[in-house]
């Protein structure tokens, strides 16, 4: 991309050794990049939406890696190649600029970011899709200092967590789950790393999103928006089960019937241990 040096090939002796070294170096870089890519990917996605987000992240990462190695490579090359040497006489050529180059390195990034933007817009339209009619399970999430309430309005189940006893949301696999999230005191963030997703719980506001879990298992989540003293303890989990297990769980009235470690959670009809100045009434808000 930058002006080519005039006399590059005639330095060094054995070009074949050079080429072999270059190949080895290239292989090493490829191995390094492959290894690094393993380490720097997002969590393995556990919803249909998360797969798209993960793919988009990988695209952005690939472009970022190219830019990173290109520019850092140019910096390292300059530092090695253009050190001032004892043989340097006089000044180097006083280049003040190059219009063509400058247009190229403005236009190429411009096209690249527009392309990534379009790709991200496509993903966004899926991830943020909120079609009420396709929702198969509806849950209400309310954040409060420092725990979560999970409600299943259709089944009349409400689960209240505490900072010590983290609540668990149970949802069936491969079904569209619609979450409406709010807060009754300060801002919170409903964040599940393996869903590659978070949505803020903001007092006075109901945020709605949908997800379709596609992996069985328990996925940990925690509050991502700083919410005061015990912010770090505001954890929860999402358990994805088969439809049959889910039906049984609902029929049994929620967590008390489930033997898998969530029996400590109780079902109540009133909020526990929270001051509720601005509790959101979901019934009045239609999504």
């Amino acid at each position, binding site marked *: 991309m*930058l*002006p080519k040096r005039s006399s590059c090939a005639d330095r060094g002796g054995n070009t074949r050794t050079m080429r072999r070294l270059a190949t080895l170096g290239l292989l090493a870089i490829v191995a390094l990049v492959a290894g690094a890519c393993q*380490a*720097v*990917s*997002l969590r393995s996605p556990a919803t249909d939406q*998360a797969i798209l*987000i993960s793919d988009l*992240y990988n695209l*952005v990462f690939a472009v970022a890696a190219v*830019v*990173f190695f290109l*520019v850092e490579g*140019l*910096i390292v090359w*300059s530092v090695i190649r253009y*050190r*001032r040497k004892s043989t340097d006489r006089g*000044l*180097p050529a*006083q*280049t*003040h600029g190059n219009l063509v180059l*400058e247009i190229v*390195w403005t236009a190429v*990034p*411009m096209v690249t*970011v527009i392309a*990534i*933007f379009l790709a*991200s*817009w496509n993903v*966004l339209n899926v*991830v943020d899709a909120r079609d009420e009619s396709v929702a198969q399970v509806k849950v209400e999430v309310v954040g409060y*200092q420092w725990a979560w309430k999970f409600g299943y309005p259709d089944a009349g189940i409400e689960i209240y967590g505490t900072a010590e006893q983290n609540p668990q949301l149970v949802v069936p696999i491969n079904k569209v789950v619609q979450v409406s999230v709010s807060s009754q*005191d*300060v*801002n919170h*963030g409903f964040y599940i790393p393996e869903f*590659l*997703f*978070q*949505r*803020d719980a*903001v*007092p*006075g*506001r109901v945020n709605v999103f949908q997800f379709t879990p596609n992996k069985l298992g328990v996925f*940990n989540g*925690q*509050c*991502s*928006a*700083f919410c*005061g*003293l015990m*912010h*770090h*303890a505001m954890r929860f989990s999402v358990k994805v089960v088969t439809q049959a297990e889910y039906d049984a769980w609902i029929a049994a009235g929620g967590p008390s019937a489930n033997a898998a470690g969530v029996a400590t959670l109780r079902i109540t009809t009133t909020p526990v241990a929270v001051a509720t100045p*601005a509790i959101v009434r979901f019934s009045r808000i239609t999504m």
Partner: protein
Amino acid sequence: MATTALRPAARSGTGIYEWLTTTDHKKIGILYMISSFVFLAIGGLLALGVRAELAQPGLQFLDESTYNQLFTMHATIMIFWVIIPFLGAIGNYVVPLQLGAPDMAFPRINALSFWLIPFAGIIVLSGFVLGGAADAGWTAYPPVSSIKYSPGPGMNLWIMGLILIGTSSILGAVNFLVTIFRMRAPGMTLFRMPILTWTVLVTAVLVLMATPVLTSALIMLFIDRNFGGSFFDPATGGSAILWQNIFWFYSHPAVYIMVLPAMGVISEILPVFSRKPLFGYKAFVFATAGIGALGFSVWAHHMFTTGGVFLPFFSIMTFFIAIPTGVKMFNWVATMWRGQLIFSTPMLFAIGFLSMFLIGGINGVFSAPVPVDYAIHATYWIVAHIHYVLFGGSFLGIMAGLYFYFPKMTGKMLDERLGKIHFVLMYVGLNLTFMPMHLLGLSGMPRRIADYSPTAGWNDLNLIATIGGFTIGASLLPLLWNIYISLRNGKAAGDDPWEANTLEWATSSPPPAWNFDRLPAITSERPLFDARHGRSGKDHA
């Protein structure tokens, strides 16, 4: 105005009284620097407290309340009392010299701008001894910053201190603008101004447009907290999101306020130590202005997950702002290309800036595609991003400027060997600290948590980050020692130890109170280069 500006000529001397009452921009610049070092020590200790606590899961040293105060005050001090004033120090000292001016346009206002800083700093820090400092994060989102959820005196003190330091910034910005537009030496046209002065000019415009907005938001929060206002309280008809909009309308441009002058410093240093002019001077000026303008259209990318933002607009603007930054990166590399690079300490820090700020630019772009932001928002990825920008970028730029301008400020050279030890320790330390945070963020560790589950898989990475943090702390010791011994018996610097290009090197080191006895002819952006080598058609294509 001219007579006021010449007043410092009547004063000289180095007594304490002289320093306390000085209106000389050079002495004020040095005062800014001393104040920034003091607050750096405080902000750094706060950060080490945070890192010590996070080294392993469980609460070992702090309780949650103290932890929340520490990370809140670390960010507050580092942003408002360290990085911005450090850049203010360089701007104050260098800009009038680069313009060939005898002082700033309003020397007394300049002194006021400085003296507000330590007093405002004492106010925000006094919370620690008056029942608890601010603990709602430096972003102070209501309702968690409201009187109900943060009832201590800390938040009120924080608001008052921030309003004062904002006033200091605004006064400084007006002063810089008038100085740059009215006090340039004959021949110094706008497009012959050094790039550092250009970046300070754009920064001053950003401060003037953005900081009053923050001040308004702070006053609204103060009214909410103390007089029953309801700007940000949803229970009484306010909006919690409103604060985020106003706050980020200031605080995103603030990132450019904190990085543009550092870019300016780098753009002075790279040409000098490559022995070439800056590649694409005009493109660089336009890119700086472009960053300034676009900087006001991206604030809501901090709010993608709130559900209350027009997503596509802020997404694409965030993508676009990467472009002028990228242009600058290519200009810097092209400046070094085919040069004769000299690796003195200022140049090492400048190259450190390039390599680290690049990472801060790239990992920031991940927040522009909204769905990716849903995954990484408010995680340690963002902590890594902001530290690669403000530490790897701004702070390394400040260090480069310190080593570059120390000879001018004191007449003494800093020791090169200690400088290189400082650079290596700091460079290694910052990567040890902030590189692992990318992985922590990707695996889902939220920021601002005092504790984490031992089974989350975050133990080793946090330990590495803590070791890195203490390495950064240690790296400042050779710097302080270097300053101490160099002031006592450093090598004499002479007027122009680096064979530099701009007017500040055309006078003695340190310069007399009136700055210049005579000025060289100014016919390009490199008057000293022209004086040294003569203007030739070849040199000025």
